[in-house]
């Protein structure tokens, strides 16, 4: 089977490094301009440059989203921005506007242009149109099933990228203005308020039909396509994309490592059902929302939606980030409560998860702790496994 790219999101430089360390072949990030996540972006151009350097040193790639669908007033500075991205070695821009695609090709031809899923591309004939504009890659619409994706690839027009994990728009991407109407926040300019996930009453012929405890909602379960990865690899999908530029470093680490492991196992012919189940369990360690496989194997029905608000849980098993290791202790930035006797796992990219039990803890002043319960506090934990700065600690599943 040919190479397949694992493409991960990152909301800041630290997360970009996590994604690359945990096995992504490429990372996509949004800068502070022209991106759908520009308001939440932590990427100054200097950070993007550092991410590029870090990635290229490892033979990996950085893509920058320039995926806003701009109004006229949003455009000033675009050309300069594209030139700047090219000058720092960005490998590709992901765009949703044909004008931006064309401009990028003219002024910054060293960068590839990838056409975003915002354009809802569903067939090879329209891909030919985009290819003539100079586009290098197509991110397919999420509404396609595996058969359709395979038929598109068979036409051999352009490399295709397919979403495999993360949140899903319930509407055709780029064509949803629920948020514009309800909150004056433009989904196509990074403002989506996720109005599809809100609760509604459904009226038929003027009569409300929903019970009050199960309001009408359009909210989609998240995508989880582990079961379709082998098929996608066989049919020649070029890139497997994980969604979630707003997600935590821990989430990125878990999800990227899980898919990396499965892709490598498929390449090596070691993709057993036992490993599959273990990876599913691993994915659940980070996933707070119920998942399904989108449109890949069937048209979503009621099982693809979140109708019961309580279905959305908070994952409590993440304990904290390892900041430093000294002798047999590690300094941890805490996120969730732990006590002496808690079974933990050190989760990292350089080894399989290592289990240990907390036998002693101290605060930064050296005071002994029975319980560490202050989020963001720094705590020394006795640790007899190989834990290093950058690793994650989590409660061990029992």
């Amino acid at each position, binding site marked *: 089977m040919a190479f397949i790219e694992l493409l991960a999101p990152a909301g800041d430089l630290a997360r970009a490094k996590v994604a690359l360390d945990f096995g992504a072949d490429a990372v996509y990030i949004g800068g502070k301009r022209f991106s759908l996540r520009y308001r939440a972006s932590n990427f100054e151009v200097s950070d993007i440059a550092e991410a590029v350097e870090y990635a290229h040193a490892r033979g990996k790639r950085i893509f920058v989203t320039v995926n806003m669908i701009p109004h006229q007033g949003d455009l000033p500075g675009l050309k300069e921005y594209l030139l700047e991205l090219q000058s720092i070695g960005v490998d590709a821009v992901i765009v949703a506007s044909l*004008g931006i695609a064309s401009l990028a090709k003219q002024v910054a031809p060293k960068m590839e242009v990838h056409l975003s899923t915002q354009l809802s591309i569903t067939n090879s004939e329209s891909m030919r149109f985009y290819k003539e504009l100079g586009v290098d890659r197509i991110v397919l619409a999420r509404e396609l099933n595996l058969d359709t994706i395979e038929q598109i690839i068979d036409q051999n027009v352009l490399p295709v990228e397919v979403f495999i994990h993360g949140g899903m728009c319930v509407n055709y991407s780029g064509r949803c203005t629920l948020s514009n109407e309800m909150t*004056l926040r433009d989904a196509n300019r990074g403002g989506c308020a996720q109005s599809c996930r809100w609760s509604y009453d459904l009226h*038929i012929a003027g009569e409300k039909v929903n019970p009050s405890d199960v309001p009408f909602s359009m909210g989609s379960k998240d995508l989880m396509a582990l079961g379709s990865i082998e098929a996608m690899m066989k049919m020649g999908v070029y890139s497997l994309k994980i969604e979630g530029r707003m997600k935590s470093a821990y989430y990125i680490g878990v999800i990227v490592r899980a898919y990396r492991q499965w892709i490598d196992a498929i390449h090596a012919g070691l993709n057993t059902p036992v490993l599959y189940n273990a990876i599913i369990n691993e994915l659940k360690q980070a996933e707070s929302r119920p998942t399904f496989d989108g449109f890949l194997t069937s048209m979503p*029905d009621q099982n693809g939606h979140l109708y019961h608000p309580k279905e959305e849980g908070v994952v409590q098993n993440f304990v904290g980030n390892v900041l430093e290791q000294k002798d047999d202790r590690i300094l941890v930035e805490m996120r969730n409560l732990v006590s002496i006797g808690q079974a933990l796992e050190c989760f990292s990219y350089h080894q399989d998860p290592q289990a240990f039990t907390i036998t002693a803890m101290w605060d930064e002043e050296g005071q002994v702790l029975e319980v560490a319960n202050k989020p963001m506090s720094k705590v020394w934990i006795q640790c007899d496994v190989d834990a290093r700065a950058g690793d994650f600690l989590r409660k061990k599943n029992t």
Partner: protein
Amino acid sequence: MIKIYHTERIEVLRNFKPNEIELVLTEPCFSYRHPLLQSKEAFINLYTEAKHLGFKPYVQVNGYVEEQELVDLKAWLTQLIKLDPKGFYFNDFAVQRFLKQLGYVGELVYAPETILTNAMDIELILTQVDRVYLSKELTLEEMMDLCKLFPNKIEAFGLGYPLMSFSRRPLVRSYLAEIGHETDVLNRLDLTIKEAKRTQHFPILEEKEGTSIFIDAIHYPKVELPLLNEALCYGVHLDDLLIKEDSFISLNQALFDEARSLEMIRLEHSDYKLGQAYYYRKTNMSKEEGQ
């Protein structure tokens, strides 16, 4: 400025003179928002009747065509070309490419929802088509500026329920299955959703192709149409979807009747909410600024 009407009802058409308006008929095989027309035959009948009334219709193909449908799409376009339409409105560039391959020389108008918002995109697309249909999520000022930049090349929404979203999923049927409610909702025109903290009832239309949701107020640019006209907007679209026939006809007449004020029209049509879409609402708000 040309008046471009969308309808599925021949009775509505009888109220218009062919030399005064243009007509767009949405075909039902690769499109959505055609709850009354469910077959090729029904479409061809409507098309033929419209021709008998003296119209030369445009055909709209507004869907997202999937790979396995391409062969059928091309065959259907071949058949449609034989009807000699004045032009085609399309969303998917596969439609435009096929029409060119088939030697079609009539007018082509690119009409996606929501994604046509700036001069750079419009300029590029106008190298491929005759005209474009602007997104509705623009302010009046933005629309006028774009119309002035591309005189008589831009069309805009004029009257009707503005579409907010389109999902491939059967959103209503899925939900009803979840709550065990057995009602056939396909193509029904009397469904609405109401958000818990809001008063608006947003029309929701479920078709076999997917689910459309609309703004609750009919777009009604009574005061603004002359401004778009001055800005050299080519034409405005008037769509009767979800509006009763007599109401549509009288709302339409009142829209172009200089003697009738918006206040009067609102009083006469109090069963409908009339609005101005995004003409005066900027939507680039942050979380803090937004509603």
